[in-house]
């Protein structure tokens, strides 16, 4: 799974191959298709007394997903030359995960402390950690952005946003 061309960063040379990723995604799609087929069959996928049953259409959709993903799977397994094509190198995967994992934490925080507070913290931490900004600047940007969102949504457009299960902004009375 390594690339032949020598690169300075060892993490650039190691990674996941395109072929492996193609196989994984095709298999996942097959599972999704199978789940759709299974549930549609349970609901009734044929002709009822009053016309097509609920599962009639999804059943056929599920079958098509299974067929299409199976063919993609076979094509990927047979395309051995793609083993040497990189889907993503370790170095780049790290960059993606650096964004994705904190983003997931952010959504988890939103669940409890609401959009405004979680967003302010997220923006500030992102700036300090990845942008190497000073704490003061980062907190200021995070807070300012969210105060302006607050006015835009709660005050002007009257669209209330999620305040969180714990609702730390309760005192504002919105």
């Amino acid at each position, binding site marked *: 799974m390594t690339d032949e061309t020598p690169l300075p960063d060892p993490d650039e040379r190691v990674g996941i191959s*395109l072929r492996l990723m193609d196989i994984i995604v*095709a298999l996942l799609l097959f599972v999704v298709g199978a789940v759709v087929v299974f549930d*549609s069959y349970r609901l009734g996928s044929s002709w009822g007394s009053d016309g*097509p049953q*609920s599962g009639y259409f999804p059943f056929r959709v599920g079958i098509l997903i299974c067929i299409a*993903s199976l063919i993609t799977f076979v094509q990927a397994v047979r395309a051995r030359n793609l083993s040497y094509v990189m889907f993503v190198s370790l170095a780049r995967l790290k960059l*993606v995960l650096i964004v994705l994992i904190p983003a997931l934490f952010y*959504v988890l925080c939103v669940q409890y402390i609401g959009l405004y507070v979680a967003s302010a913290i997220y923006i500030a931490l992102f700036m300090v950690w990845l*942008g190497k900004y000073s704490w003061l600047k980062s907190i200021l940007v995070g807070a300012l952005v969210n105060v302006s969102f607050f006015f835009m949504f709660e005050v002007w*457009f009257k669209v209330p946003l999620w305040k969180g299960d714990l609702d730390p902004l309760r005192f504002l009375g919105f």
Partner: protein
Amino acid sequence: MVELNALFQGFAVVLTPFNMLLMTIGIVLGVIIGVLPGLGGANGVAILLPLTFAMPPTSAIIMLSCIYWGALFGGAITSILFNIPGEPWSVATTFDGYPMAQQGRAGEALTAAFTSSFVGAFVAVVMITFLAPMVAKFALQFGPPEFFAVYLLTFCSFIGMGKGSPWKTLSAMMLGFALAAVGMDTVTGQLRLIFGFTDLMRGFDFLIAVIGLFGIGEILLSMEEGLSFTGKTARINPKVVFQTWASLPKYWATLVRSSAIGIWMGITPGGATPASFMSYGVAKRMSRDGEKFGTGQIEGVIAPETAAHAAGTSALLPMLALGIPGSPTAAVLLGGLLIWGLQPGPLLFVEQKDFVWGLIASMYLGNIFGLVIVLTCVPLFAAILRIPFSIIAPVILVICAIGAYTVHSAMLDIWFMMLFGVIGYLFKKLNYPLAPMVLALVLGDRAEDSFRQSMLIAQGDLRIFFSNGLVGGITALALILLFWPLVSRVVGRLRGA
């Protein structure tokens, strides 16, 4: 000339101070969205859609469609100044636009890009003005089998005309249909594919999918590329504008050809991106300076920009006349119609005259507004890209999260958005097309309904799709397109032998 009368009534609808203000706001927001990486036409409109819930539908569509025009304009700014296409349809603009900027001709390139976008859009709007009512009138005779045949045609053409693996296109499309089926079955009231999770009863909203697939997916992709913005500065002075305008009539053939390509690709669900590439390729082949393309030829900017705008605009024709969107952004606008309580389809032209003609009139005015705004404010918009990525990226993610939440005021949707973001990242890198998936998600229920109704009429006999000349013709065309990859391979082999 009924159309002209109706159009003037449309202008009367648009020319109120409130609607004019919304137009300006829409264009400015649109250009900003077009400039920022990770926010594009489709997800930008999707995020801002909830803000329009309380507006009258006509004002809402005017603002949203102006965001779309703005995004189309904005893509060119980053392509020319930063060599970073803000939108997929402006990739072809970088080929000659960025070299022009490097030679210090940024003002000329930008003026040419904006003006030719305007021309492309204008030709497309004129076409919509006269063709859309005719198509709608014709479509009034359609019954369920005809509509299903048109849906079939739309989806088959994705498989037939797509560049990548037809099986991947089919997988992505069917995944869209499957996701659309989740939740309450609109005919029998049964719950489908929810596996006991009552939160899934609402189903997957395509707006959430659009925000995740295009927004979050895009941020992950641009993060991987480790974006650093190093751009040329630009200021457009009036002298350059007039000089460029004076030189443009020379390229009338390119303008006409590119508009035609754009309109064709926009009405068929090819979309703006392939239209811009195709137009660039054709211009390169037809031009006398063809071999100089890529070194800063003004024609290389005119061709893709005209086609992209013509395609982006004419994608609204099938959306308005048939209720079938020609692009993901048109799909989002169609979703808006449903939310505002309008029934998309040919009856719109009969029942909602103000709405339809207000929208068409706003296309004319919006593009004129857009041209003026982008020509005068380029330095301002370019400055946005100088904000470092480590500030822009989290802010865009927050905006996406807010957009996803406001659709149904549901926290769970933010989680779904993240899930769709990862799917978008994987699909983009593995060449699964996103557009058919989004369209299937939007049209899933309607396609299924028309299929079931047809089956009910025919008592389960599939021959109903060939029961008369019209439906038979559309179905046959759809099947030809579906098997086109196979046919062309066989023809190729026969020729080779």
